[in-house]
């Protein structure tokens, strides 16, 4: 492999990894606070993409010309709000009643919600893939020589970094963030200190789902074919990324996402490209066998 090809694959891998990272953030936060893998997370990602699909033709016509970036941001923000609402709703209806139950019960419920969103999506939106509108015109940047970086890749990267920073800020500097960390550390003590667990949980879900929604739009911009089943595999892979980085650990999720993206890209570009799917799982199993805490995790349940 020439060095140009190598660097190009790195670029491809990192940009793919950015999506996994965004989705992984949601997984890792919910796990940190609730010790529970939200299987339906990947499907919130899908709903984000569809929100963007239906919002764009209604919003963008009002923001033409120089106002376009504002329009795009509006679609993004609205989608994030919608997904946050959906996430909170799911938690309220399906997970909250089961808080005292064994974890497996909630896990099954999460699977049920995931299936419902997927097949319900097929029922409501139709099963065929839809072409996602071009909010950002995708073309390769100039002056990059032999390498290719596209506008969507850059946009996705920037937004991801921005959201990552914003998330870290919320978690480290705000009261709600502190509450989240408290609950993830020791829920009983947190409750004793006056933290409203319900609010914190809702907030966590809302935040995670908003990120998934954003990921959905960015993903749909780069791969403009959306369908109701699109969240399944990215969801699982993002989970692998979260575990890789140390579940419950925010920077870990980002790092995990990038690593997974890069590894997948290199495998995909090689002769073994048919095994690409299996790689994510093999990686997962390897990590769980040799270092279950992930890269940044500590053996005990981890902080947000």
């Amino acid at each position: 492999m020439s060095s140009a090809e190598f660097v190009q694959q790195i670029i491809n891998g990192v940009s793919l990894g950015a999506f996994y990272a965004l989705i992984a953030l949601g997984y890792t936060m919910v796990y940190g606070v609730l010790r529970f893998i939200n299987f339906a997370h990947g499907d919130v990602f899908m709903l984000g993409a569809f929100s963007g699909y239906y919002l764009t033709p209604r919003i963008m016509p009002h923001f033409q010309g120089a106002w376009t970036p504002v329009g795009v941001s509006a679609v993004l923000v609205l989608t994030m709000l919608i997904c946050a609402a959906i996430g909170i709703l799911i938690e309220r209806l399906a997970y909250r009643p089961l808080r005292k139950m064994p974890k497996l019960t909630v896990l099954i419920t999460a699977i049920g919600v995931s299936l419902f969103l997927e097949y319900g999506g097929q029922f409501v939106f139709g099963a065929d893939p839809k072409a996602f509108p071009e909010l950002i015109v995708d073309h390769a940047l100039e002056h990059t020589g032999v390498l290719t970086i596209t506008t969507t890749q850059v946009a996705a990267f920037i937004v991801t970094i921005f959201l990552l920073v914003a998330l870290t800020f919320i978690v480290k500097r705000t009261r709600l963030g502190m509450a989240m960390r408290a609950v993830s550390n020791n829920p009983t003590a947190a409750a004793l200190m006056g933290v409203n667990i319900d609010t914190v949980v809702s907030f966590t879900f809302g935040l995670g789902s908003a990120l998934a929604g954003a990921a959905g739009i960015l993903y749909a911009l780069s791969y403009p074919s959306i369908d109701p089943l699109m969240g399944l595999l990215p969801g699982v892979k993002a989970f692998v990324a979260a575990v890789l980085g140390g579940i419950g650990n925010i920077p870990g999720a980002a790092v995990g996402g990038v690593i997974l993206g890069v590894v997948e890209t290199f495998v995909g570009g090689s002769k073994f490209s048919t095994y690409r799917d299996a790689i994510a799982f093999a990686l997962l199993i390897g990590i769980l066998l040799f270092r279950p805490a992930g890269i940044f995790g500590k053996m005990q349940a981890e902080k947000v």
Partner: protein
Amino acid sequence: MKSFSRSKLVLLAALSFVMAASTRGQDIVVGEFASLTGSEATFGINSSNGVELAKEEINSGGGLLGGRKIKLVVEDDQSKPGQPSSAVKKLVASDKAIAILGEIASSRSLEAAPICQEAKIPMISPGSTNPRVTDVGDYIFRVCFIDPFQGTVMAKFALDTLKVKKVAILTDVKNDYSVGLTKYFKDYFTAHGGAIVSERSFSGGGTDKDFRAQLTSIKAAQPEAIFVPGYYTEAGLIAKQARSLGIKVPLMGGDGWDSPKLSEIGGSAIEGCYFSTHFSPQDKNPKVQDFVKKYQEKFKAMPDGMAPLGYDAMMILASAIKTAGGTDAAKIRDALAATKDYDGVTGKITIDEKRNATKSAVVLQVHGKQNDYVTTVAP
């Protein structure tokens, strides 16, 4: 609570069987199984629409065999293996279908075919291109061409028309259609002086959306064209990513590309690329135009490649029933086998001795929503 709802269920079940029995009458029962939900729902829904359109036309035109209407029983196989088995058994044994239409995916046709063959019920596949499907037995037919033919079509096109000698192939390894086409393309291409400079693969069906890794690797091998024998769902994305990576050579594909969504998803990236298919909507043939119009009226959408195949399958079946003069399965089978030069929406169809359709393929070039007709390749 459990026992209460369970007895209610039993009552409902009993009631439903009574009702089902009472609706059987003079109708000609035709069974159809298709992937109406699941990962390949797009193809199943479209071919099913085509069949439905044909059925309505026949029924409103007075039905068959002196006014008998066609009763279409459609079963969804959810795009999952294991389902066609029970679906077709139900159609044959419970619904007493006299013929079965289905499926698009060769894998699911392969599952159902032995059942139809054993029950001696004719089965017509609208779109399965794997040669093995009709090998199952003499009651299994198809109205589309098979992969060996289609693979050679594009290989020939590449060599003779595009005049390229170095091609890369990107296969959808989860899709037997794609794997089959790859093999036949390779066979012809390399046997006639061409070289495959790079072969990569991906997992289609919605799983993989990022092909940059494979494309980067392909780009390094410097092909003059890339053969992408997959479905339009991926082809559009592949084209976009290829262009953004700086790959400028043309892409080629098979009938899996045939859908209005191809250019929606692929945009300017897929402009100018080529694919082989069954018919061209631009075809001035009044039959085609008529079909497109009726389809749009009923379903408010443009038909893709599978819809006319479903339509033709039903129409050919109807014609065979008329020739057979009754619903005797053996007679219908013989009538089907004798189909010659049937004027279908997807071209002139002749059923050969292997019960495959001998038809020409057309090569189209993507041009916005209208694909430009380039050439016809006869078998």
